[in-house]
């Protein structure tokens, strides 16, 4: 790469991941549909995964990629349990939003 175009450095990846994380956080704060809030949590998890992978490359340590592997597994388990809860709430009240969280009160 001897021409003048800059090649993306690790900092670019980290800043992009920070932007993605902030977007996911804004989504969780703004949206009311519990399913869409879940998708925004997935956005934040992906931002963290991107950070891990970029730093694993930069620091030359494969442990970052191993951590991403575990994050993916835990995210899958979290989605399964969360969707189970959402299904059991929405089956009772099909139009429930995050504002109706007092429905959880026994």
């Amino acid at each position, binding site marked *: 790469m001897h021409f003048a175009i800059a090649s993306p450095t690790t900092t670019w990846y980290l800043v*992009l991941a920070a932007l993605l994380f902030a977007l996911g956080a804004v989504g969780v704060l703004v949206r009311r549909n519990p399913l869409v809030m879940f998708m925004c949590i997935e956005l934040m998890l992906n931002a963290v995964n991107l950070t891990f992978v970029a730093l694993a490359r930069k620091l030359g340590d494969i442990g970052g990629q*191993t951590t991403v592997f575990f994050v993916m597994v835990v995210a899958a388990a979290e989605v399964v349990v969360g969707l189970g809860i959402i299904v059991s709430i929405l089956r009772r009240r099909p139009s429930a939003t995050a504002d109706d969280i007092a429905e959880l009160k026994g």
Partner: protein
Amino acid sequence: MQLFVFVCAAAMILVGAIGVIVRSHPVHAALSLILTLFGVAVLFVAQDAHFLAAVQVIVYAGAIVVLFLFVIMLLGVDKAEALRIDPVKVQRPLAAIVGLGLFGLVAAAIVRSRDSLVVRGRGIDIASGDTGHDSNIRQLANDLFSNHVFAFEVTSVLLVIAVVGTVLLARRPRSGSASDTSAGSK
């Protein structure tokens, strides 16, 4: 070339993420999420994480988003949400401030500390040379099954707990109040 890949993938990621936030229809939000996940997979390839890119496409875009779509279709909640009305007046400006502050703080920390990133591991093998094309998978497996084998086993326990818990949660009670005990005995 690398710059081109990065810019395209970043555009995919950001357009998808904004789509998840602003699309009022849950199905459209799920499809925007797929766009973001593919962009992240492209960046994984660009960062020499080939196995994780494959897992990202198969598990995230393949399984998790399909699970979301299943739930959306199954529950019949695929109605457009009224995003124009804002039930809490200060919520959106406050959320925007929080998001900007979060991004600003993290980006400032990244830019300030960018010189302190030094190589401290043994390095990640690029898929070239005599190790063949699967050197990333081999290296990842070596680390996973030597240093983190206990965590790997605990992960399987976690998955079993998640499956059993979800079956209990989403199970339709048969009739009467005896469903809890019969489900617990399985």
